[in-house]
C-alpha cells in the first residue's frame, strides 16, 4: 500500500486534473492582453512539461493533506502507517521539497512529517474499497485564505463582500487564476473544513442546491470583474471557479471561510482494495 501512496503523490504533482487544464485553456482563449496570455501560455507549457517528465510542476509540493474514505472493514491503522511512510518515501523518490517545519523554531523535519502532519481527514463510507485523496496545499495560496465570523444581519451581502475583499487583497500573490473554496455556516472550524472540501469538487460542477449554485456563479462573475488577472498582471480571469459548501449554524452566528487555491490545483485519488 505504501508504494501506492508514493505513486498517488507522484501523479498528483505531475498531472493536473483534466477539468483544471480545460479551464486554463479556456482562460487562454478568453484573454487578449499580451502579458495575461504569456502567463497562461507558461502555465500550459509547464503542465505539459511536468507530465512528460513525471516531475512536480511546482517546486512548492505543499503541505501533505489526505482525505480517506474508509471502506467497511478497512484497517485504519495500516492505512495511516502507509500514508505516513508513503509521504516520507515520496519526499526522496518523487522527489518532494522538504516543506514541513516546527511553527516556532522553524526547524525543518527533512521528510515532510511533523506534529499533526500529514493531515489525514478520516471519513466513513459503505463501499467495499477505501478511497484515498491526496491534496498537497501550497503556501502561496493558503496564505491568502481568511476566516470571518459575520453577524447574521450581514447576510448574503456580507458573505459576498468578504469573499470579494479576500480575493482582492490577495491580488497576484496566490498565483491566479485561482480556485476559490468557500465554507459557509457551521462552527468556526467546520466552516474552514468545508472551505477546503469545496476545493475537492470538480470545477466544472455546481452545488446541488440552487441558491448556493447561483451564489457560486455570481461570485465568480464579480471576482473576474476585479480585473486582477493571471498572476496579477490584469485580465479577465482572476478565478476559474468558486465552489461553496455549507452547513447549518447557530442562530446567532454566520461563519465564513475562504480557502484560496492556486491555478496548479493538484489532487489525485487512489482506490485501496482489501485491507
Amino acid at each position, binding site marked *: 500500500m505504501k508504494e501506492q501512496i508514493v505513486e498517488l503523490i507522484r501523479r498528483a504533482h505531475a498531472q493536473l486534473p483534466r477539468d483544471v487544464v480545460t479551464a486554463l485553456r479556456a482562460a487562454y482563449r478568453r484573454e487578449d492582453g499580451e502579458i495575461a496570455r504569456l502567463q497562461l501560455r507558461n502555465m500550459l507549457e*509547464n503542465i505539459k512539461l511536468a507530465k512528460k517528465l513525471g516531475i512536480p510542476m511546482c*517546486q512548492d509540493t505543499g503541505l501533505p493533506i489526505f482525505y480517506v474514505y474508509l471502506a467497511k472493514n478497512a484497517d485504519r491503522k495500516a492505512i495511516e502507517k502507509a500514508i505516513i511512510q508513503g509521504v516520507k518515501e515520496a519526499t526522496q523518490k518523487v*522527489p518532494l521539497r*522538504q516543506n514541513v517545519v516546527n511553527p516556532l523554531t522553524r526547524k525543518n523535519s527533512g521528510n515532510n512529517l511533523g506534529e499533526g502532519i500529514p493531515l489525514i481527514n478520516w471519513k466513513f463510507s459503505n463501499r467495499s474499497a477505501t478511497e484515498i485523496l491526496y491534496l498537497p496545499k501550497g503556501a502561496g495560496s493558503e496564505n491568502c485564505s481568511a476566516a470571518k465570523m459575520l453577524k447574521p444581519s450581514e447576510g448574503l451581502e456580507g458573505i459576498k463582500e468578504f469573499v470579494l475583499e479576500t480575493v482582492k487583497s490577495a491580488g*497576484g500573490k496566490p498565483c491566479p487564476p485561482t480556485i476559490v473554496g468557500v465554507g459557509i455556516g457551521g462552527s468556526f472550524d467546520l466552516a474552514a473544513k468545508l472551505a477546503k472540501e469545496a476545493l475537492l469538487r470538480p470545477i466544472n460542477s455546481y452545488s446541488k442546491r440552487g441558491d448556493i449554485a447561483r451564489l457560486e456563479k455570481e461570485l465568480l462573475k464579480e471576482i473576474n470583474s476585479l480585473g486582477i488577472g*493571471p*498572476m496579477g*498582471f490584469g485580465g479577465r480571469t482572476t478565478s476559474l471557479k468558486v465552489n461553496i459548501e455549507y452547513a447549518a449554524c447557530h442562530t446567532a452566528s454566520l461563519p465564513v471561510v475562504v480557502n484560496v487555491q492556486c491555478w496548479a490545483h493538484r489532487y489525485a485519488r487512489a482506490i485501496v482494495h482489501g485491507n
Partner: protein
Amino acid sequence: MAIKLKTPMSDEQVKKLKAGDVVYVSGEIVTARDRAHQRALELRRSEIPVSFEVIYHSGPLVKKNREWRAISCGPTTSARFEKYIPKMTKKFGTKIIIGKGGIEAKNCVYLCFTGGCGALAARAVKRVKAVHWLDLGMPEAVWVLEVENFGPLVVAIDARGNSLFKR
C-alpha cells in the same frame, strides 16, 4: 521583442528595462527566502559567500545524486520579503529581484516569472553551482543557480518605479 540579459548586469542595462518588457536571463542568480534574508542582514558583509546582485525569490526543489540538480524551481511570493528589500539593496547593491505576485518596493528592478511553473524554470537551470546555509533547510537555503535563457520573464517594476501591479 524579447530582451536577452546576462548577469552580472551594468546599471546602464538595468535602467534600460521598461515595465512590460519581456526578458530572458542567463548567468548566475542566487535564491533567498525569509531565513536567508535574515541571516544575510545579520552577518558581516565579509561573511557572506555570495553576491546578492540578482536575487531569485525561490525555494527550489533539488535532488542530489552526485551533484545537486534542480527538479522544479519556480518563483515564490515576493511580498513575504518586502521588508528586507531596502536593506538588501543598501547592503549588497541588489539590482534585480526575480519573483512573483508583486511588491511595492521601488529600490530595484523587479522581474516576474509565472508562479507554479517550476518544471519550466528548472529546464533553464544548467547547473546548481553551489549551496550555502543548508542548515536552514532545502527551501530556505541559498542556492546559486546557473541559468540559460530563463524566461519569459516580465519586467514588472522598472528603475523609474513604473509598476504593472499598480492599477
